[in-house]
């Protein structure tokens, strides 16, 4: 039994597999119950708030559906219990707004008639799919502005954990910056949290002290934006428009919008046409750069937006040669990294330090 489970698991681990063929019947709007599991409180001002806004949008579109949610779901077997509880309460669809790995896939195996979706997940089975936004394109665009705004060419990055997502974000920022200033560097400090304003502010201050005059990062809170405002350097944020916390320092943000994706998911579930798949939300489809900050010169904004337009038209900036931080060519000349490759990024590009 264990061997078979292992083999089945191995085939599920890799993203980008074909859509599953399993059918789920149609449902009336009033029958649908969706359970949402969030990694932090719904008023965190960032990631979870964006998901919660999308849920409210769903209720506006489909007034008869019911939703449940649990905040601050731990990354432990208690997550499994929360997913199981959603099933016990009759949810036909369970959406984890962050990665819960086995804790969700184990329950998906036990409840084959319930649909499971995992944001930042990696597995696809008959009733388990994942979705994730290709935030690296927005980071690349912001990276171009960063190189133009920074005088020292030294960018700072307030990181959470050295996961592939975070590596992709930091790498993309520097690749964008290096496209206009080949000697730009990016130094990252992981603070082991997505939401820790105190630690983010300390990391931001330390980066400025070491000579960085542009701060990027991947935080739910505006902690390092406030520091940038006080110290007179630039900052780019994540999740939401945070300009009010540092109007002079604010450059842009990797802004998220899950409403269209959730609306489409519910529409497909009601119509009985939902199929499990791994789904990347493209630039402009749930992830984008925010409206530029008040002090960003129009010429800089224009230059970055020209590249954004090229990406929207289908061009990818993640084309070789790309070297890693030891100088070894990891993406050969002429080869372009697919979104699946970027989603599994486990090395830092040349010029990035502090993450691996």
């Amino acid at each position, binding site marked *: 039994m*264990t*061997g078979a489970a292992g*083999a089945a698991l191995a085939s599920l681990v890799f993203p980008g597999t074909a859509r599953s063929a399993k059918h789920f019947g149609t449902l009336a709007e009033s029958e649908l119950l969706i359970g949402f599991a969030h990694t932090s409180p719904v008023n965190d001002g960032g990631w979870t708030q964006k998901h919660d806004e999308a849920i409210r949008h769903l209720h506006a579109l489909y007034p008869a559906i019911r939703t449940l949610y649990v905040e601050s779901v731990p990354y432990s077997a208690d997550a499994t219990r929360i997913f199981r*509880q959603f099933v016990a309460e009759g949810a036909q669809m369970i959406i984890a707004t962050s*990665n819960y*790995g086995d804790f969700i896939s*184990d329950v998906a195996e*036990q409840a084959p008639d319930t649909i499971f979706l995992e944001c930042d997940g990696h597995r696809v089975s008959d009733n388990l799919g994942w979705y994730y936004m290709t935030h690296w394109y927005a980071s690349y665009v912001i990276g171009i502005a960063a190189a133009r705004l920074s005088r020292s060419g030294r960018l700072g990055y307030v990181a959470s954990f050295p996961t592939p997502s975070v590596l992709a974000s930091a790498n993309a920022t520097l690749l964008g910056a290096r496209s206009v200033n080949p000697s730009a560097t990016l130094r990252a400090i992981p603070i082991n949290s997505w939401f820790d304003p105190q630690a983010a502010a300390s990391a931001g201050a330390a980066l400025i002290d070491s000579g960085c005059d542009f701060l990027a990062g991947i935080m739910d809170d505006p902690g390092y934006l406030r520091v940038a405002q006080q110290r007179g350097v630039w900052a780019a944020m994540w999740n939401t428009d945070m300009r009010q916390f540092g109007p002079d320092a604010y450059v842009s943000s990797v802004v998220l919008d899950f409403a269209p994706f959730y609306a489409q998911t519910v529409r497909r579930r009601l119509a009985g046409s939902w199929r499990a798949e791994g789904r990347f939300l493209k630039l402009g489809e749930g992830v984008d750069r925010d409206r530029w900050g008040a002090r960003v010169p129009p010429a800089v904004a224009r230059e970055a937006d020209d590249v954004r337009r090229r990406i929207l038209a289908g061009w990818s900036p993640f084309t070789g040669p790309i070297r890693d931080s030891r100088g070894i060519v990891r993406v050969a000349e002429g080869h372009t990294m697919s979104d699946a490759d970027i989603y599994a990024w486990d090395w830092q590009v040349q010029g990035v330090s502090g993450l691996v």
Partner: protein
Amino acid sequence: MRGEGRQMAVISFRRIVIARMIAIGIVFLLVAAGIYGLGLDPGMVGRLVVTSTFGTRFGLENLALYMTPLLLTGAAVWLALRAGLWNIGAEGQFLAGASAAAAIGLSGGANPALAGSPAAFMSSSLTLVLAMTASFLAGALWSALPAAGRAWLGVSEIITTLLMNFIALYMVYALVTGPWADKVTGAQMSSARIEVVLPAFAGAVHCGWPIALLAVAMLALLFRRSRFSYCLALCGSNPEAARYAGIDVGRHVFVTLLLSGGIAGIGGMIEVFGTVHRLQGGLANGYGYLGIVVALLARKSALALVPAALLMAIILNAGIVLQTVQVSASAVLAMTGLLVFAIAVADDYAAWSRSGRAS
């Protein structure tokens, strides 16, 4: 309190049960009032908790899965209490056992080519037996230092066993972010998945549940009018008298704490191979500390560990249910504390009213 503690042994089972029922009833009323205070309908919430815990297969399975580690950590703390020792370190011993078991599970590796064959069955059975043995030894080893300190140097085991918990937790963090970090699925702070699993018992409930029940039954047998249990009780209540009677108190204390740690360690192995399938930072989930509650609820009877663990499991599962109506997980912690307090008062009341009547 100490004197009354002696007397409690002769308080009738019925009196204790009645006093506790009243205490639990009061706690439930307080909790209902709290839920009402949050703007929720206590009747609706109560029905939701009852129907989703007892009315669904998933709910019943959850109870068994919660009971399993609680039975073992409860048994660990209970055993130490029989000798008058407070093992606050079941959490750390649980993690030490889990780590040792994971080491076996990760090094073995199921061979997919052998899947379903008798050879695969033999190799996974061997892994399970080795892992369980290793977890017992690791749990025992984790309590060895506090045990030796208490047995021969008189160092309070309450402090030392507690402090060992933090060492165990950070050891697990170091392992799962360092040498054992999962590189396949990007699971955070987790080891790779262990492919050998405890066989299923019923549905999602694995064999760990009957094993834990069996462990409690064995403990009950061991304490049924045995010389060992008498020696422990004597060591705990009056070490001087025990020494005078020729009992090696130090050795009894040492062995008891070692056994206690070993039982908690097996709990860690079962959680890894049955429920979580990885070594992971959040693995212990407070089971070591909740084991103290379970042991206190069970008083002097090993078999009472079963209803005590069941009650804790119901409360923990209620906590999961309550979170879906936005009652915070920490409210459950408050509820547990309230319950322990109420039951302590109830036990004392039962003892007090009896002695009052006798005199």
